[in-house]
């Protein structure tokens, strides 16, 4: 172990050097004189996770330890770890940002992410714990042809994980660059190296504890911020929302979003509109499609399902989902206050200026609450939120890499290449080597994808999980006639339709359409500035004048941004697959691809004969419902 100890120390050193020593490309959030605070907080959090990894490395001796923490994680611990896996930077920063920019729609968007866990709780967690061992492939291999289904499931696991991973790496790189001002490449490499240290040395034990630490810090940071926001408004419910609708920043934002429709509305009506649906989510069908992908996709996410192999019993699996629901749900309720608080105190204009996706809402709110950009406490709080966001990205990536690497080593290498004949030491080594391969791949993809729009990749990962992984797992567990033919058909059809539909959907960049849309923004902003100019001339009250001047500044900013967007596109006229406009109108393919995935499993099973799938049904069904057979297996 001394060898791995010194390697951990080296990795810690290298990670810190990359973070601390890299020449800042530009600093947006933390002013240079306060940079030392950022480094202090980062070093403290990274140091803590490294210490945990060092402790974990001593406990990881077998492949069961590496893949599943030896089945020794408690329900409560696993609940926090699931929350840690799930509350990625996209939900921590993204949803708070959406609420700060679009109000009600942002909050409504968060609901599906929690409801998703009802599926996990009721129909997935316990049977998976009773049937599976380390991977999703294990669940399918129980009654289907093991080599065939493991091969297809491993490919699907790696596909889903890679999509999610790419979104996390690119998002993380941009975020770290914005938050602490180091180069994109360095941030991607720093995230990658730290994550690899957790996974390779500490396996699932370290990954679980890093998730727990990060989830606790995330919830803690949010609680403190919500307390500080609410404190300013006297802790009242209706009183708080009265302040929200009366806020000039929010009223100006709604006026900007509504354009001409806002002309005859009073300021109070504009503010109230922020708490009503329709500012962000324009297409109800798309909403439902996304909802389906979330509600069914979460239960098909390899890195989430993998967490159920780490607990000793089905009861513990159940407890862990219930804890996860309490934590995740509580967190989303907090983001309602983080988002509206950021909209009032920081203002949508400043949030958009820092990051167009709204990701900087929570960090900027932290800075404001601590006393602003010039104060020490403000920068300390910003640094803390930035460090938590960084830890979030590293931890989520670690979970994804572990899921993909397990599929590679356990399903493909041991299950198929070695025909289940590998010693435990060989398998553990293979798992570490596969983690290294996946990690290197993640870093490479992260660097190559710089500047690409990857936001849709998260939705795509959920869509593939819901259209391919969930149908095959669900029907293997609950449908007597399901067999190898159905599993293969479901995985292939579900994955390909989900990916294919996204490639021809509005998620891709269509240069001609973007140019037209930005041109419209320039025109409306120009007419708005003109109108506001007239209002300003008529206004006598200095307070009103100030509000109008702010609105003019916002409109001018919107114009500059739109012009920059047009310039960025250059002379491109077609999307990635050579289309001028989308063929398929929904951003989320779930509405079509999920039913197709289920249908493929049904048809595939009916047209294929597989005696083993029928013979093993009774055993699978009794085991999944009673836990007989498995309960002893984990008690070592």
């Amino acid at each position, binding site marked *: 172990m001394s060898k791995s100890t010194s390697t951990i120390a080296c990795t810690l050193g290298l990670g810190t050097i990359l973070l601390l020593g890299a020449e800042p490309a530009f600093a947006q959030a933390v002013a240079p004189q306060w940079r030392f605070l950022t480094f202090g907080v980062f070093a403290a959090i990274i140091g803590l996770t490294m210490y945990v990894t060092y402790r974990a490395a001593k406990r990881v001796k077998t492949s069961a330890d590496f893949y599943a923490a030896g089945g020794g994680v408690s329900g409560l611990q696993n609940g926090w770890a699931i929350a840690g896996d799930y509350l990625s930077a996209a939900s921590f920063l993204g949803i708070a940002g959406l609420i700060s920019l679009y109000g009600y729609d942002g909050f409504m968007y968060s609901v599906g992410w929690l*409801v998703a866990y009802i599926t996990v709780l009721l*129909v997935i967690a316990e049977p998976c714990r009773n049937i599976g061992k380390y991977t999703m492939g294990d669940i399918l291999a129980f009654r289907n042809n093991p080599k065939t289904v493991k091969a297809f499931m491993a490919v699907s696991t790696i596909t889903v994980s890679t999509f999610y991973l790419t979104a996390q790496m690119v998002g993380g790189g941009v975020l770290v660059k914005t938050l602490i001002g180091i180069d994109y490449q360095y941030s991607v490499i720093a995230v990658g190296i730290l994550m690899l240290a957790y996974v390779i040395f500490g396996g699932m034990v370290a990954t679980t504890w890093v998730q727990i630490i990060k989830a606790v810090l995330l919830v803690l940071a949010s609680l403190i911020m919500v307390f500080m926001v609410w404190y300013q408004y006297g802790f009242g*419910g209706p009183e708080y929302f009265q302040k929200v609708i009366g806020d000039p920043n929010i009223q100006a934002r709604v006026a900007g979003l509504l354009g001409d429709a806002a002309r005859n509305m009073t300021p109070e009506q504009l503010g109230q509109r922020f708490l009503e649906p329709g500012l962000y989510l324009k297409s109800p069908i798309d909403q439902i499609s996304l909802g389906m992908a979330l509600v069914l996709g979460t239960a098909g996410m390899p890195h989430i399902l993998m967490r159920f192999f780490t607990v000793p019993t089905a009861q513990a699996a159940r407890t862990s989902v219930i804890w996860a629901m*309490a934590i995740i749900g509580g967190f989303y309720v907090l983001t309602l206050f983080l988002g509206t608080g950021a909209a009032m105190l920081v203002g949508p204009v400043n949030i958009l200026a820092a990051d167009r996706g709204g990701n900087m809402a929570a960090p900027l709110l932290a800075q404001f609450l601590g006393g602003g950009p010039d104060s020490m406490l403000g920068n300390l709080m910003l640094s803390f939120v930035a460090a938590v966001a960084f830890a979030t990205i590293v931890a989520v990536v670690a979970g994804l890499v572990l899921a993909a690497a397990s599929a590679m080593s356990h399903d493909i290498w041991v299950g198929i290449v070695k025909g289940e004949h590998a010693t435990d030491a060989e398998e553990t080594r293979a798992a570490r080597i596969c983690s290294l391969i996946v990690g290197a791949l993640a870093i490479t993809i992260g660097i190559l994808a710089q500047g690409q729009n990857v936001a849709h990749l998260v939705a795509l990962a959920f869509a593939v999980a819901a259209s391919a992984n969930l149908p095959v797992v669900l029907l293997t567990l609950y449908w007597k006639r399901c067999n190898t033919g159905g599993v293969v058909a479901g995985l292939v059809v579900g994955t390909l339709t989900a990916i294919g539909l996204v490639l021809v959907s509005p998620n891709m960049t269509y240069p001609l359409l973007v140019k037209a849309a930005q041109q419209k923004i320039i025109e409306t902003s120009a007419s708005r500035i003109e109108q506001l100019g007239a209002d300003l001339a008529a206004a006598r009250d200095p307070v009103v004048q100030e509000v109008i001047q702010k609105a003019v500044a916002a409109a001018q900013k919107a114009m500059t941004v739109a012009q920059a967007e047009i310039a960025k596109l250059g002379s491109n006229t077609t999307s990635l697959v050579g289309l001028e406009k989308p063929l398929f109108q929904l951003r989320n393919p779930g509405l079509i691809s999920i039913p197709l995935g289920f249908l493929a499993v049904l048809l595939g099973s009916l047209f294929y004969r597989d005696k083993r799938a029928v013979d093993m049904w009774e055993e699978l069904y009794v085991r999944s*419902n*009673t836990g007989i057979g498995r309960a002893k297996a984990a008690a070592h």
Partner: protein
Amino acid sequence: MANPTIDWAAIDADPGFRELHGRKIRFLWGLMAFSVVYYFLLPIGAAYFTDLYRIKVWGAINVGLLFALSQFLVAWGIAFLYARKASQFDAMAEQIARKADALGGRQ
């Protein structure tokens, strides 16, 4: 992992297991169907019953906001309900497991 001495078909045919299975399936899928319907009412309502969502209930707090918040309470409620019901299922499963032991199936 497979234990050849357990007669899975016998357990599957056992009335105790059949009853556990039936009750579980009805309870779980019923709850599942309810939660899915309740959840999809939110985006559907937001799209087609916007006027309803706008009705102010308590100061600036409107029906839409309360409905979205109720989704959290309902999700937690389902989790709570299931946790309570599941302990009954656990007891039934434990009995079946003991019966399997009595048959000499489990070492």
